[in-house]
């Protein structure tokens, strides 16, 4: 491990993983202070990630060798551009969703009084799992982090304790377990073939293909790409609003992040151009199918959940664009920027939907007339975030879509360019379908209960964040591309 190994770097990485765990333990002990600890914890974690980002900008990719044992034996946590980017967006959204949750969960009648307080430890465990996942550089470590994230998400999804929510959570649990199992089998195969658990290039034996198939299928299942997306809409639509925001914005992206690492680093030599088009085709189908279902959705959170299914399609376009001939680095940068923009926008939209639900008592789109009058701030947040989801300028979503479009056109991939533009049109359709109801002028519609100001504030801040991302795209893109593997399909070994 050459490079300047400043102790300071290790502290930030360790803090990024340890602080959420510590916060979780503290919350289990001091149950009454859970909410306060939650927000405080978010600030601490965000601080750690910010420090890490500063180090990254100064000195390039950082790393922490846990326990002092060098990688083949021990575990190394690597903090390069993508990892820090994802950790940063998780921190940002975690902070705002946390503040939102302090107001949202209090009067949750369905669960027992102490039930809502246990939201916080579960969320902290989820956060720890996410941070560990971004920084992991070891196959089995990724498995364990995937499990932490999976189980915590299931626990959170079932928090609403209604029959629909519990059924959806159970389905989600089974999906997650099936995926993890396949992943574990893949890891076993890789270990059997190479003898190490690191993300190094694996021999092209049939074992490599089997491992690729199992791990990829498992991760596709957990990321809910088109044919395997059945579990996502019920789970995200029936979970409480802050949980839906976390699931849609962050958790879905975590398993995609793992697949990104695997396909671009571990399995890169195995993947020929043809294989790379498999996820591309599924992605195109996802965009179209998700948008169609979102158009037909009758409830607002269902509409947003199906929008996630569609937007996940955009993510998987990186494989055909990056691996099949196109240059790697811009495609990476584009998809990571898309993840950031989508996370902010999707979280904002779910929080706004939560506000609508709390204020109107239901979220049936057809009966949401007069929403714009009653909840101007939330609806403005929904609009701004919707613009970013659709990919219209000046939002972050636009820059991401532009980068993907440029990559597609440079690689001469016409199909994907068409899908990108068509997806944007369909997204406009379902976002503004809601607005055509919300803008209806209903003179005397009255809300069932008022909203604390911070709930609308959080939604607005996240939406404006996704807009600001569009304007300050350059520095973030530079950060995201630090430490990316340079060359194209060959995908040389891991970060230097």
């Amino acid at each position, binding site marked *: 491990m050459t490079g300047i190994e400043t102790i300071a770097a290790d502290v930030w990485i360790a803090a990024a993983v340890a602080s959420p765990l510590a916060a979780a333990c503290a919350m289990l002990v001091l149950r009454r202070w859970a909410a306060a600890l939650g927000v405080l914890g978010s600030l601490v974690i965000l601080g750690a990630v910010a420090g890490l980002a500063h180090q990254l900008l100064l000195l390039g990719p950082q790393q922490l060798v846990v326990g002092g044992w060098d990688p083949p034996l021990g575990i190394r946590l690597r903090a390069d551009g993508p990892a820090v980017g994802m950790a940063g967006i998780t921190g940002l959204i975690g902070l705002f969703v946390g503040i939102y949750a302090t107001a949202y969960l209090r009067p949750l009648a*369905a669960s027992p009084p102490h039930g809502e307080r246990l939201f916080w430890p579960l969320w902290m465990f989820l956060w720890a799992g996410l941070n560990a996942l971004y920084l992991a550089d070891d196959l089995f470590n990724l498995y364990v982090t995937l499990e932490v994230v999976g189980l915590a998400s299931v626990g959170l999804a079932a928090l609403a304790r209604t029959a629909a929510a*519990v059924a959806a959570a159970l389905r989600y649990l089974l999906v997650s377990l099936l995926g993890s199992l396949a992943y*574990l089998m893949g890891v076993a195969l890789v270990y059997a073939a190479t003898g190490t658990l690191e993300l190094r290039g694996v021999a092209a034996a049939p074992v490599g293909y089997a491992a690729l198939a199992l791990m990829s299928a498992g991760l596709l299942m957990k990321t809910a790409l088109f044919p395997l997306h059945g579990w996502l809409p019920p789970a995200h639509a029936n979970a409480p609003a802050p949980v839906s925001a976390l699931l849609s914005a962050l958790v879905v992206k975590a398993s995609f992040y793992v697949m990104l690492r695997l396909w671009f680093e571990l399995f890169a030599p195995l993947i020929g151009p043809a294989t790379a088009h498999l996820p591309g085709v599924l992605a195109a189908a996802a965009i179209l199918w998700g948008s169609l279902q979102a158009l037909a959705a009758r409830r607002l959170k269902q509409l947003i959940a199906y929008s996630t299914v569609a937007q996940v399609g955009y993510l998987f376009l990186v494989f055909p664009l990056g691996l099949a001939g196109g240059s790697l680095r811009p495609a990476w940068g584009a998809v990571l920027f898309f993840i950031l923009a989508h996370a902010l926008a999707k979280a904002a939209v779910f929080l706004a939907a939560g506000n609508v639900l709390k204020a109107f008592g239901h979220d049936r789109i057809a009966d949401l007339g007069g929403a714009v009058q009653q909840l101007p701030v939330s609806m403005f947040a929904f609009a701004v975030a919707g613009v970013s989801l659709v990919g219209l300028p000046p939002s972050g979503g636009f820059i991401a879509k532009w980068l993907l479009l440029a990559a597609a056109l440079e690689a001469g991939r016409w199909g994907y360019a068409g899908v990108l533009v068509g997806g944007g049109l369909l997204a406009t359709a379902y976002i503004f379908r809601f607005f055509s109801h919300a803008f209806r002028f209903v003179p005397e519609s009255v809300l069932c209960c008022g909203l604390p100001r911070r709930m609308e504030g959080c939604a607005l801040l996240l939406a404006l964040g996704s807009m600001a991302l569009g304007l300050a795209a350059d520095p973030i893109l530079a950060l995201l591309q630090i430490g990316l593997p340079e060359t194209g399909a060959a995908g040389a070994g891991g970060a230097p």
Partner: protein
Amino acid sequence: MSALLYAVVGAVLFALGLYGVVAASPLLRKVLAFNIAGSGVFLFLVAMADRVRVPFPDPVPQAMVLTGIVVAVSATALALLLICLLRELSDRPREAADDGH
């Protein structure tokens, strides 16, 4: 040679478990099938450990198996709990059509 046999048996158990998880309709049978698949993977891992005769069989797969078992246990427990909760919630006639939460 016997390591290979156990590995193959592990693989078959894994496939069997997968079939069970997918095809079995009652929820409990799915969880059981999931555990069978899990044990299949663990058997495969242990078989891999046995192929190496350094003074002791390769400890890393064994550690992985231990961790896998703990994860499997916690997942199964959560699954069972959810199944109980689901049955209890759906027995009770659902009062308010509370669409949202």
